[in-house]
């Protein structure tokens, strides 16, 4: 498989077959909490994509630095601090230099520090794409972050639609609220199971 084909397959894998929310259970809090309205769902996911991309771009070289000094065991603590600092920095910079963008995305940024999808993508990138530090691997890592972010957005937006339908339904009393939301999430996730095997047969 050529490199560009591989990148496309990584992207599709993370959007559909290995969707972060629906099959890896990362980022469930915003998925359940912020998916009530379509516009907040969009804003939140856009901010997540943005933060995922920049944190991967920064943590990947940092990991190579850690490997160089034999300090791999510090990865968790270093990554979470880098992400937290980065988010703060981006928020401040956005507020000052790009007020329109800040109004659209900035409000979601503080929430993202403790979003497990962001730390998850960074850690998984190291796990699955190796850390030999080559440009090819860096490309793979960036692509999987983009895929993870887009998959997050897809799930959020789809689910916002599902929830708006739920509002007008006559639900049994004991299932009202969170329980029915989770059952709906279960069905959404079930539909994504259908994508299994898609990617490997696409280029076969």
């Amino acid at each position: 498989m050529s490199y560009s084909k591989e990148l496309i397959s990584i992207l599709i894998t993370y959007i559909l077959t290995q969707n972060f929310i629906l099959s890896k259970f990362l980022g469930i809090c915003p998925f359940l909490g912020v998916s009530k309205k379509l516009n907040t769902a969009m804003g939140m996911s856009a901010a997540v994509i943005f933060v995922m991309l920049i944190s991967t771009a920064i943590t990947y070289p940092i990991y190579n630095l850690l490997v160089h000094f034999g300090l791999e065991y510090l990865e968790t603590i270093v990554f979470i601090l880098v992400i937290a600092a980065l988010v703060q920095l981006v928020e401040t910079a956005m507020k000052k230099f790009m007020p329109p963008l800040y109004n659209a995305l900035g409000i979601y940024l503080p929430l993202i520090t403790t979003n497990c999808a962001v730390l998850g993508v960074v850690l998984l990138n190291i796990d699955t794409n190796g850390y030999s530090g080559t440009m090819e691997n860096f490309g793979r890592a960036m692509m999987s972050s983009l895929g993870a972010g887009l998959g997050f957005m897809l799930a959020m937006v789809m689910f916002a639609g599902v929830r708006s339908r739920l509002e007008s339904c006559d639900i049994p009393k004991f299932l009202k609220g969170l329980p029915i939301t989770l059952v709906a999430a279960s069905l959404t996730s079930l539909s994504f199971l259908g994508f299994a095997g898609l990617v490997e047969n696409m280029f076969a």
Partner: protein
Amino acid sequence: MAEKKTLRQEFTKGLIKENPVLRLVLGTCPTLAVTTSVMSAVGMGASATAVLVCSNIAISLLRKVIPSKVRIPAYIVIIASFVTIVQMVVKAFMPELDQQLGVYLPLIVVNCIILGRAEAFAGKNPVLASAVDGLGMGVGFTGALFFMGFIRELFGSGTFLSGIAGINGGNGLAVPFLNENPMLIFVLAPGGFFVFGILMAVANKIAEGKGLPKAELHGCENCPMAKSCTIIHKEDCKSNEEVASK
């Protein structure tokens, strides 16, 4: 109010009344992700409890030293250190558990329960109370995970306690009928959401009987970052209240 409570009350509140998973709806990611078997569910619960107790103690000890401005980053550093320690210990002494939990073990860092307890309790209360509070919350978390893991393993693989070397060579106890006809969907992702939904419904029903309010996801109200969160917080909470009032 808090200081009048006895230690016993601090411990028991986390078990049922303020159960982090079933009442406060925190830490949903691990609740769904690692509950495919009892062994990994309890392993995750125990690891998170260890981190929770240690970080609560450390934060409570340092609560007068840490400047409030850099409170959150300091908490994150402390929590991340304990997570890394637990991670290393699990890797060294329980390699099978490490394989099962995978990336979800380091992700305890961003488990809202831990940062949430640091912010809501340990940062304001004495050491002993904080430790007991952490232990109670941790046991409550582990209990909820155990139920999830038990149901999913029972129906999904038809076994109980598989993966523990001492029991039937790591294959666990086979449950008649279910073992021959496992309902695979229970251990897959949709089964996780479904079982959690049903458990929430049951928990709500019990709470209703006791006159407690229903567990509801308050947008981000329970999230420790909620204070720095402006618009989502207001909007979602308002809509929640509106729904409730209807």
